[in-house]
């Protein structure tokens, strides 16, 4: 009964969608409304103004710098909410089903992880540092770093992973995304220009360019490491609370 009602409602929504799609400008067009206002300027002057050959990085870190700074607080508050709900993991103690399982991780999985994980981390560092001149960036690299550590925790178990990534080391890194952004923004204030201005007055052109690319790299690295570690902490907190189902099964 409910299913039929839902399907009818979805059909109504689908009619509205199809009508709207019929009214939308054609895909692939070069002069659709979204490409005629601010985009030509970004494409033309993006490298010069934002200091990144990758226009997307320029938009994220420079034109929309405030937006990205808010985004780093979003992932930080996600971590805060998860910790408030689940609490931190305890060192060398885990109730996760991975650790409670009697079955050892297979040798194939261990060996493959041992060979692949260093390469994954190297690729993450490359992605973070290459956000400016080519495809890449802080959030993407952070996701790869986080994924590599999460795979480690899944293969070797939470106690081993919390030994390698202890809470004391993760705590300062979790806030590094926001702190890197704030620190680089305040440098602009100290030089008498607006918050999050990366071109500092009073320096010769060449030096100012170098300083700007250095500041952007610091922000990217902060976002990468901070974002990655935040997701590692979230997964550790979740893994520690995993065991309830197993206790139910054993009754």
């Amino acid at each position, binding site marked *: 009964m409910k299913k039929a009602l839902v399907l009818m409602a979805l059909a109504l929504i689908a009619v509205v969608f199809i009508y709207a799609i019929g009214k939308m400008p054609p895909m692939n067009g070069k002069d659709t409304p979204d490409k005629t206002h601010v985009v030509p300027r970004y*494409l033309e002057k993006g490298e010069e103004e934002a200091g990144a050959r990758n226009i997307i990085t320029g938009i*994220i870190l420079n034109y929309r710098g405030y937006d990205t700074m808010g985004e780093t607080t979003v992932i930080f508050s996600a971590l805060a909410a998860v910790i408030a709900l689940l609490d931190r993991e305890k060192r060398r103690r885990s109730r996760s089903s991975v650790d409670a399982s009697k079955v050892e991780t297979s040798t194939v999985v261990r060996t493959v992880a041992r060979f692949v994980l260093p390469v994954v981390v190297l690729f993450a560092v490359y992605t973070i540092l290459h956000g400016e001149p080519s495809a890449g960036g802080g959030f993407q690299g952070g996701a790869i770093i986080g994924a590599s550590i999460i795979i480690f925790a899944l293969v070797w178990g939470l106690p081993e992973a919390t030994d390698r990534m202890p809470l004391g080391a993760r705590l300062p890194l979790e806030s590094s995304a926001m702190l890197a952004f704030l620190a680089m923004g305040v440098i602009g204030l100290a030089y008498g220009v607006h918050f999050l201005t990366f071109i500092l007055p009073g320096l010769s052109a060449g030096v100012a360019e170098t300083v700007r690319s250095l500041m952007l790299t610091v922000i990217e690295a902060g976002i990468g490491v901070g974002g990655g570690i935040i997701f590692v902490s979230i997964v550790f907190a979740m893994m520690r609370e995993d065991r309830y189902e197993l206790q139910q099964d054993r009754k």
Partner: protein
Amino acid sequence: MSFSRIVNNFNYVFSALLFLMGLYTVAVKPNLIKKLIGLNIMETSVFLLIVSLGMVGGGEAPIVEAGVKTANIVNPIPQALILTGIVVAVSTTAVALSLCIRIHQKYGTLEAGAILGREVDV
């Protein structure tokens, strides 16, 4: 509004389809994890729609090569917006999953009917 316009905008059609699939999952499936998966499918459909808006036929990635002028560059703004969107989607999913863990600890199940203590009509 014409049929050819709808066929030409096939990316939008598929993102609408994905959105409806996600909405159906959220509305009908009683399992909370399945509802979350539906929510993520809906989010992905929105990402597909907005990234498709910035597409240019045969366009290149918006990375400026030194001294080379390319006319066919895709719109970078939707891509930058969607990067933000993906991060927010992951954050909300993380919070929702930890809520699911707490619910599972309290009730021992993730089925909406069992949690509410009554049969849920599907």
